[in-house]
């Protein structure tokens, strides 16, 4: 538990740093930082249940995608700004580095092992995000119809 809390705090610090680097608007910083922390929490919990890297990253990225969509609707800003930051703690930086290092240093075993990790994590994140945007694609038209009605009403109806 202590281990997890330390990691959680570290993820918050890291995600906050990246949110500033990516030029996130100051008033969205807190939400983006928290999203990074929660995404990592989902990853951590699923990782306890299954040793499969693909599944744990898929679940976490799916969460990040859905949460980013909700935040995007609330704040009226593109969802990608939140989802890109949400998955920052999942990015397989270490595996990518050891993989390329193995390739260049001629360590074939290291390369093979780490490229498998990088690929599975990368695919898991991408699949999670795609899966979430598919779900959103189903929900969105319903929300859209409502908001359009509201906007037409606000404009006093469109004389046609």
């Amino acid at each position, binding site marked *: 538990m202590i281990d997890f809390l330390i990691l959680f705090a*570290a993820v918050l610090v890291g995600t906050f740093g990246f949110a500033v680097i*990516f030029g996130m608007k100051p008033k969205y910083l807190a939400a983006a930082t928290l999203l990074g922390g929660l995404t990592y929490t989902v990853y951590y919990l699923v990782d306890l249940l299954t040793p499969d890297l693909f599944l744990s990253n898929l679940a976490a990225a799916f969460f990040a995608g859905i949460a980013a969509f909700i935040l995007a609707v609330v704040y009226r800003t593109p969802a*990608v700004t939140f989802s890109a930051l949400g998955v920052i703690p999942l990015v397989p930086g270490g595996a990518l580095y050891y993989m390329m290092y193995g390739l260049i240093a001629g360590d074939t075993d290291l390369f093979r092992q780490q490229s498998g990790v990088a690929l599975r994590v990368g695919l898991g994140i991408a699949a999670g995000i795609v899966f979430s945007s598919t779900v959103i694609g189903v929900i969105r038209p319903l929300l859209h119809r409502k908001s359009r009605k509201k906007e037409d009403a606000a404009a006093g109806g469109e004389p046609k």
Partner: protein
Amino acid sequence: METEKNTHRFEGESDADFLLRTALDVAALTLRSGGEIHRVEETIQRICSAFGAEHTEVFAIHSQIIASVRMRDGSYSSQVRRIYESDNRFARLGEVNRISRALCFGKMTLEEAQEAIARAKGITPYPVWMILLASACGAGGLSFLFGAGIRDALCAALVGFLVTLLGRLIPKNGNVFLEMVLRSFAIGVLSRVTVLVGAGLDAGKIIVGAIMLLVPGVSFGNAMRDLLGGDTLSGTLGIVRSILLAASIAFGLFVATAVTGGAVL
């Protein structure tokens, strides 16, 4: 239909050339601020049809946008934009998105949009010193995920700070791969130095934390999403680019290892 609804509002000002130029300005800035390909294509489609275009075609990849539009009176325009650099600049992306929405809902004219785009180009929410401190946070915080302790994390934060500072000082020569090699070389050497002076414990963990600042994680993720979402060409290009960037990073570190004469790992 959207087109039917909006035509009468903009009669007399829907010049095909100016309309497409403005739509492309909005779309190009979207792409340069880290927007996705499908967002870029949709932006042009929606703006054009909101301003009375009868037919719009768009094709975008990360380095280029091609679009053509045909108006009701038969006037036609076809334009190409080459995009040289793109970066994650989310506050600017949000602002461009706002302009695009305002155009589509008829709350902004094309002339107003031109002014708004010129203003949006200059949006930088944070001063340089904050970016430097944020780099330290990013490198230090994420190094924990790769097994670093507090001492190594602080070293990673210091290295991240210095390398971002270095990146600001190096004049941009246009070759992003060379820049990556230089930066990762600096990370390799600096991490090794922190261990040599006795501050850090494990150079490998410091390096992995600090290179999170360089690793093209977000663009790799976006490319995978493009690929799985059906944008095969832009997805493939993005993945090739990410792999080359990762290879540049590894190469820089490899040279650093050779120079410092010790196993960095």
